[in-house]
């Protein structure tokens, strides 16, 4: 595109004091030039037309701040990703689009208001929910800094699942699971600053980081006690799913799950104090059926199907327990029937050991699980197809062990509501970001540790516990959290106290006082704008994304030739990421779109969509994160339902509802955005419109 022409155009716009072209506007040189220009011309609003706010907004915000301006008086226009990279074959139309985008930026900039970071005090106390390896590790690390930790366990004993396990292994390292976790529990009891509450359940959770109140039921605290903490670590662990009668579980006492087997191994003499141990016949004296000679394991029970994935730890558990059985009785015959063996790095050594000891491995087809057949004496024969040797096997089984899938704790359903976080259908909590925020929830001050997220090994659980301690310790050590200036602001003048904003805020950032008046707890507000777009009386505005500002952008975009233009409202985190990806990938798409950035698609109100149609736009696009991802938990769902309602309203108002398009696009999905543009242009017949 013709950059000097765009600069010249900008110079002629109302309110523009200065338009300057920088070759490398993010370079140290240019940044200092920008500061000098701001000071020299006493500039009070800045529009940057360059790459994308997703990478460089912070840099330019800091820069104008260093020049003495409030950082919120900056508007970012993306002419590289949205123009020069994606309209390479249409320089004239591209230049025109860049001018429009700059005009939109200026229109918004003149309406920008100062914003401020908001701080909320955070004290040094943390509630750890769940006292397994992850929870105890988290508590010890929190208390290790001199902070207060409360460990809350619903059962009457600390230690969690490890209490029921026999050995835990990693490489050549062994430990008695219960003994080890009990020594950890003992340290927790001894550590000053840790209070332990057992046998208690959570009834209510109110408040937010720095200010949580938890109501308890039962337990060894005082009745009806309410806990006051600043942060929370959720470490509620997991449990086996029920095999639900499959493979004769529950029918035949010889069929048991991996955890039921662990209990039996645990109760064998080997785990009793040495003075009580008998010399021989260890296996048979331990509650196993007396004639256990043949053991068969079936892997992936309830896993790797349409509803559940790989259980992550079943292969390791089976091999470990098979080795434990071999240690109890070297003559025992063991077959492990599997689909895929997942034994990584040093676990390969364990696998070698197992094979060396004669443990047999047999692979069955994904769609044909082994079948146990009962003999008259109650023993079993397991019929299985070994696909590696291509033969049907009939394996006698005095004991049939099922490696079943896992699910989250039964308290998850209740807790997720109280904490306002999400969990998958299996009751595993959904972390904030799969890759880069695996230990936290979207709500500040609430961390996630151990198997409450997904099944993991002991080592990983401990790491997650300590890591979660780090995540909650940062605000506790600093003494505050800081929220960005993009927050909701309520004007109570027209408020009819309907309570919708309070109910719908995904972060519980809107409280209601005794008079039913809503109030924004600004430090908690993430600025998604869901409340503002939903408020029936239009009382709520979002700093930096006010109705007036967004509408000014719509108006500016449609100033000329609106019938050829598409107004796109794109969310900052995903859809704009997709737009940027289309740019980076140089995907060429039609020039008709004029995009308006909102933090979340939930910010886009019916009023904004309607304005675009009223001003004659050819079409409107609302684009947000792909389900189920949403940077603001569920904003895209709210946007989707609002678009549906809007379509009905458009039809009633005489507009074509088919011209309102809704797309969900991940930050990586440039092609999807480009295709959407092409499709819309084709659907609205814009290429041929004169």
């Amino acid at each position, binding site marked *: 595109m013709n950059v000097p022409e765009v600069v010249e155009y900008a110079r002629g716009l109302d309110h523009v004091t200065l338009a300057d072209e920088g070759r*490398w506007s993010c*370079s*140290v*040189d240019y940044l200092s030039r920008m500061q000098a220009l701001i000071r020299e011309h006493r500039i009070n609003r800045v529009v940057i037309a360059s790459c994308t706010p*997703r*990478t460089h907004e*912070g840099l330019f915000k*800091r820069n104008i701040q260093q020049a003495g301006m409030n950082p919120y008086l900056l508007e970012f226009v993306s002419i590289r990703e949205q123009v020069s990279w994606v309209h390479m074959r249409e320089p004239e139309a591209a230049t025109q689009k860049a001018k429009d985008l700059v005009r939109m930026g200026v229109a918004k900039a003149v309406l920008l208001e100062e914003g401020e970071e908001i701080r909320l005090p955070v004290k040094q106390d943390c509630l750890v929910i769940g006292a397994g390896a992850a929870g105890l590790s988290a508590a010890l*690390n929190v208390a290790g*800094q001199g902070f207060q930790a409360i460990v809350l366990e619903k059962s009457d004993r600390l230690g969690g699942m490890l209490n029921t396990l026999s050995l835990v292994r*990693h*490489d050549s*390292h*062994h430990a008695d699971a219960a003994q*080890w976790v009990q020594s950890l529990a003992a340290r927790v009891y001894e550590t000053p600053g840790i209070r332990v509450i057992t046998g208690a359940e959570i009834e209510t959770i109110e408040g937010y980081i720095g200010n949580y109140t938890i109501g308890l039921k039962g337990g060894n605290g005082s009745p009806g006690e309410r806990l006051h903490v600043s942060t929370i670590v959720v470490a509620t662990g997991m449990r086996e799913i029920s095999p639900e009668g499959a493979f004769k579980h529950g029918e035949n006492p010889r069929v048991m799950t991996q955890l039921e087997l662990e209990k039996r191994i645990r109760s064998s003499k080997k785990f009793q104090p040495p003075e009580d141990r008998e010399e021989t016949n260890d296996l048979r004296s331990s509650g196993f059926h007396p004639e256990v000679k043949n053991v068969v394991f079936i892997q992936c029970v309830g*896993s*790797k199907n*349409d509803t559940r*994935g*790989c259980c*992550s730890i079943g292969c390791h558990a089976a091999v470990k327990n098979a080795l434990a059985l071999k240690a109890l009785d070297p003559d025992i015959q063991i077959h492990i029937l599997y689909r*895929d063996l*997942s*034994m*990584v*790095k*040093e676990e*390969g050594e364990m696998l070698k050991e197992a094979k060396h000891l004669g443990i047999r491995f047999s692979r069955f*087809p994904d769609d044909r699980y082994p079948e146990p057949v009962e003999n008259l004496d109650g023993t079993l024969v397991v019929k299985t197809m070994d696909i*590696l040797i*291509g033969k049907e096997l009939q394996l006698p089984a005095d004991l049939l062990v099922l490696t079943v899938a896992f699910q989250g704790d039964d308290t998850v359903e209740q807790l997720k509501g109280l904490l306002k976080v999400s969990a998958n259908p299996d009751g*595993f909590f959904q972390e904030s970001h*799969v*890759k*880069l925020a*695996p*230990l936290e929830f979207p709500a500040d001050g609430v961390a996630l540790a151990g198997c409450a*997220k*997904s099944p993991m090994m002991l*080592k*990983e659980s*401990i*790491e*997650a516990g*300590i*890591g979660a301690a*780090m995540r909650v*310790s*940062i605000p506790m*050590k600093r003494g505050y959290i800081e929220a960005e200036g993009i927050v909701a602001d309520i004007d109570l003048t027209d408020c009819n106290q309907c309570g919708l904003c309070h109910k719908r805020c995904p972060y519980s950032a809107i409280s209601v006082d005794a008079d039913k008046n809503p109030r924004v707890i600004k430090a908690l507000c993430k600025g998604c704008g869901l409340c503002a777009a939903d408020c029936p009386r239009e009382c709520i505005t979002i700093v930096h994304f006010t109705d007036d500002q967004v509408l000014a952008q719509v108006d500016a975009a449609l100033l000329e030739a609106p019938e050829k233009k598409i107004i796109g409202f794109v969310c900052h985190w995903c859809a704009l*990421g997709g737009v940027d*990806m289309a740019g980076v*990938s*140089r995907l060429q798409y039609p020039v008709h779109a004029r995009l308006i950035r909102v933090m979340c698609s939930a910010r886009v109100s019916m009023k904004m969509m309607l304005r675009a149609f009223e001003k004659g736009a050819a079409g409107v696009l609302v684009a947000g994160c792909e389900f189920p*991802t949403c940077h603001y938990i569920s904003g895209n769902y709210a946007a989707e339902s609002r678009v549906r309602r809007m379509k009905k309203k458009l039809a009633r108002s005489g507009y074509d509802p088919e011209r309102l398009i809704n797309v969900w696009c*991940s930050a*990586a*999905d*440039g*092609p999807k955005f480009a295709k959407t543009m092409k499709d819309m242009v084709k659907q609205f017949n814009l290429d041929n419109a004169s």
Partner: protein
Amino acid sequence: MRDAILIIGGGIAGINCALNAARYGTKVYLVDDTASIGGMMARLDKTFPTNDCSICIEAPQMYDTDNQENIEILTHTEVRKVKAKNGGFDIRLVKRPKYVDEEKCTGCGACVEACPVSIPDEMDGKIGGKRKLISMAFPQAVPNMVSLDPACRSGEMQDAGACIGGCAVDCSQCRECPIALCVKACEKEGKNAVTLWQSAKNVKLEVKSIVVATGIDAARPAGDLLGYDLYDNVITGMQFERLMNAGGPTAGEIIRPSDGRHARRIAWVQCAGRGLAPGKGVPYCSKICCMIATKQVIITKEHDAAVETTVFYNDLKAYGKNFWGFYQKAVDAGVRYIRGRPYEVQENPETRNLVVRYENLETGKIETHEVDLLVLSTGIVPNERNAKLAKVLGIELDHLGYFKEKDPLTAPLETSVPGIYLCGGATGPIDIAESVVQACAAGMKAVLRP
């Protein structure tokens, strides 16, 4: 400063460890021996199982690291000496010259344009990746600056057409340069940042604890592995990742090295080289390769659904949350997963297509499969500099070459030396999320040390 910590390695683990410790309030020295932080993740196209664009999610963290006032980034820097003292450590670092002034360079690229010589990129060489003798590690590099190939500066590239070389005196003797085009180009931009006379710099630090975050590497295939050295169209998984990366040498076009034509039939060989003689392949399961290949087939199918994709594998490692669903997505997209073990590859000299002979593990039969492009998933190996670093730190490696945890079961991430901790690929093959978890935990341990 005794309260500070040293983090060795600026990949995603080191970056997260640094950000956590710094936000906690601790001074952090983040050392990386390459020219930029970012590590392996900066080279990837996407991340499984969400197909997030890798650099898109990593770059904001890199920028945050750069802007965090408690973090001092030292790139091109090696740890040379570590001495335990007063419950902490005295550290000596050597900052190798980039021959470019860090304070002055803005990464404008004028010197890169001026440089007359392009050589094959170390990692992307086989798929046509090239770099200049003065270049930036990648577009989003932090610090955002170029560095000069030491081989050029020492005159070794003169035969390849480099402007530097043949002088009577060594560059270290000069303070200006009449011949180097990069120096001139920089002067013309008014910056004078290219300084061929720059020398290595010793840096001394005092810290209370050290976190080792040296990361992993993709195994290079032994030369004769499934035709890798013989045939242009046999590439590694990491090369394929670069091939599909919009920021890679082909701008995201999945094309064959031999003729630049779009590959219509592609196969992946999992566990390539595994189980072969020592030195021929990675002897253990590297855990993440199945999901990497699954990601690559899905992206390939997204690029062009008509491309025929096949994955030869032994055991599918769908070990994490939502990984199985990710595999199902690939299957639904029409990817063929064959339990099979390829043992021989032959090229058709005319078409340059490859015929893969493999044992079908489900039927026991020997079968053949013809493709345009073959991708070897060669597994993950430890950082090759681990051994040297272990010696400097006085800690041990395990028999596979990863750093040894004192008690991985019950005291993970600790080493035999109190105050030295591990995270990320330093401990073994690991994915990004697991690295981040360990980074937070190691950071906690490091800052809590009195």
